[in-house]
């Protein structure tokens, strides 16, 4: 750690991991509700648990992104943060607002929450992923503005690197597109059309810029490869991301009342969306192979490579599986979508945040570059536990989705939804088992922060040959 103000990242990372645990606990509950329909009913109905699961994901990823930004921006800009105090203040504002929102979900019926928070004044609630009360949404905007001010001023008054600029563009885009969450017309088609401007243009647009810049930063630090090389590939990859991803939004505009030509525009461009992810995989492995030193933090390198591979599989391959309109006609809104969503979010965004935490945490905890060997071994165990179990969650959901698609949509005698759900129960059970393994992996991950803290860190071997 070269700058004192980088220390604020630690708060954000700890909160991120804490909320991650909450997210997974609710994930396990949801998985159980899929097979034991009345589990926790009516105390925590499925919709509430799901809302907690998805919103915690979004919030902890945002914590992770912000922590990553607070850590890497000073180092890249070669100066302290403009205002570390503001960063700490916003941390508490965001954490408390987030916690209150989640408690609101759990303790008050959703319609009551809507009334309490005056949803009538500016109705924005009750749409997938954007369930937060309007007041929370406004809070998110305020936090985002303060955050952007802090990061932006630091970057603009310091050294401007590609990593910094791309991160800033990504974060500004994140804030700008979130504004569409305040647009909620009575017209369902328009509602859905612009809802995707938040959801798709986030995860298949600006978030990928954030992902790319964090990955580039960690690769620069851990491989010692010339910054010029990494930065130009970063540009090419994110260029491909936006070239394919922006019009790729069209793959959501097939069946929601939008004109038919989106079936073509969406299919053609989203069919190309795996390309940037593939480039990212090739890029990451290339850089690690061309490394000029062996970084002592092996776990961080493992996470970085894992991100590249899993993002390609989850977002690229599993996205492509059902992105073409003729396929999507049958798979739209089935467990196939859930399979894709799980692996894409884990592979791209969960893993990049964990990569950054893995890289930065040793320094934030006062070490020179890496944790002790014992801690790293445990962390790598958690990597494999979580990653492999996520692969299985995805495979089981894909199996469930294929069967569901056939029985409910494709066969000559389509069966009702609930009948099909019972027929594919076995897959849900297997998914739940994989989910429990994921939770164990997460606990191992947390344990890795507490073992070997007294032991010396792994030393750097120079391989400048």
């Amino acid at each position: 750690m070269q700058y004192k103000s980088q220390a604020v990242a630690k708060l954000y990372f700890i909160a991120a991991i804490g909320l991650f645990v909450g997210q997974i606990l609710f994930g396990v509950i949801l998985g159980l509700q899929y097979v034991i329909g009345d589990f926790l009913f009516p105390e925590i109905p499925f919709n509430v648990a799901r809302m907690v699961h998805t919103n915690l994901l979004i919030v902890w990823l945002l914590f992770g992104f912000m922590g990553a930004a607070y850590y890497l921006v000073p180092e890249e800009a070669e100066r302290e943060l403009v205002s570390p105090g503001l960063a700490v203040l916003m941390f508490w504002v965001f954490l408390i607002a987030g916690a209150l929102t989640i408690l609101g979900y759990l303790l008050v019926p959703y319609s009551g929450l809507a009334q309490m928070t005056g949803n009538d004044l500016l109705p924005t609630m009750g749409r997938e992923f954007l369930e937060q009360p309007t007041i929370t949404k406004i809070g998110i905007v305020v936090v985002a503005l303060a955050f952007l001010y802090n990061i932006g001023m630091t970057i603009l008054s310091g050294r401007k690197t590609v990593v910094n600029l791309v991160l800033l563009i990504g974060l500004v885009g994140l804030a700008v597109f979130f504004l569409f969450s305040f647009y909620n017309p009575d017209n369902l088609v328009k509602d859905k059309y612009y809802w995707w401007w938040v959801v798709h243009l986030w995860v298949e647009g600006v978030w990928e810029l954030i992902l790319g810049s964090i990955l580039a930063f960690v690769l620069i630090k851990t491989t010692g490869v010339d910054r010029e090389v990494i930065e130009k590939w970063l540009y090419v990859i994110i260029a491909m991301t936006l070239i394919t991803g922006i019009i790729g939004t069209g793959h959501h505009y097939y069946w929601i009342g939008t004109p038919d030509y989106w079936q073509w525009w969406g299919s053609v461009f989203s069919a190309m969306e795996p390309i940037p992810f593939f480039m990212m995989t090739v890029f990451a492995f290339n850089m690690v192979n061309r490394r000029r030193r062996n970084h002592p933090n092996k776990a961080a390198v493992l996470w970085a490579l894992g991100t590249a591979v899993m993002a390609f599989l989850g977002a690229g391959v599993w996205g492509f599986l059902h992105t073409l309109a003729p396929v999507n006609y049958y798979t739209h809104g089935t467990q196939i979508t859930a399979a894709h969503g799980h692996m894409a979010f884990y592979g791209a965004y969960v893993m990049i945040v964990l990569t950054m935490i893995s890289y930065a945490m040793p320094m934030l905890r006062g070490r020179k570059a890496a944790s002790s060997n014992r801690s790293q071994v445990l962390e790598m165990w958690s990597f494999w536990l979580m990653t492999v179990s996520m692969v299985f969650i995805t495979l089981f959901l894909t199996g469930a989705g294929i069967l569901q698609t056939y029985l409910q949509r494709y066969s000559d005698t389509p069966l009702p939804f609930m009948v099909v759900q019972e027929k594919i129960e076995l897959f849900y059970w297997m998914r739940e088992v994989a989910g429990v393994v994921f939770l164990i992996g997460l606990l191992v991950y947390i344990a890795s922060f507490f073992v070997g803290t007294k032991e010396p860190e792994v030393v750097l071997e120079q391989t400048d040959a």
Partner: protein
Amino acid sequence: MSQAFTKAMARNIFYGGSVFFFLLFLALTFDSEATFPERDNRQNITESVAMGKRLWEENNCIGCHTLLGEGAYFAPELGNAYKRLGGREGIMAFIMSRPKDGVPGRRSMPQFNFTQEELEALADFLKYVSEINTADWPPNIQG
């Protein structure tokens, strides 16, 4: 004429490409907006439909159901519920019939205790949704 792969050119392509495709996206959006009136069934958005949409949102129905294929995959698709459940009466009867404490061992929709006016608004909303031109999706009545 030496082969170059420069950061400056990569940057130009990133900025140029992003602006280009975003403008194209805006152009397509502009065209889409022009076609919406023929497809989105806006002539049937009454006050009751708007109220139904608000109820749909404020009870987080999307947390279990899909609507035009988007939402959660825990409960049936409702874009065609109007047709599948037998019209407004069928929808209202189903919502009213949900047991307060659920069904042992099975998934069950909560009892929301809607008033008659609210039930009708929800039914009107689902009727409106079922008449949106969705390019023949879903493939069959099961949703």
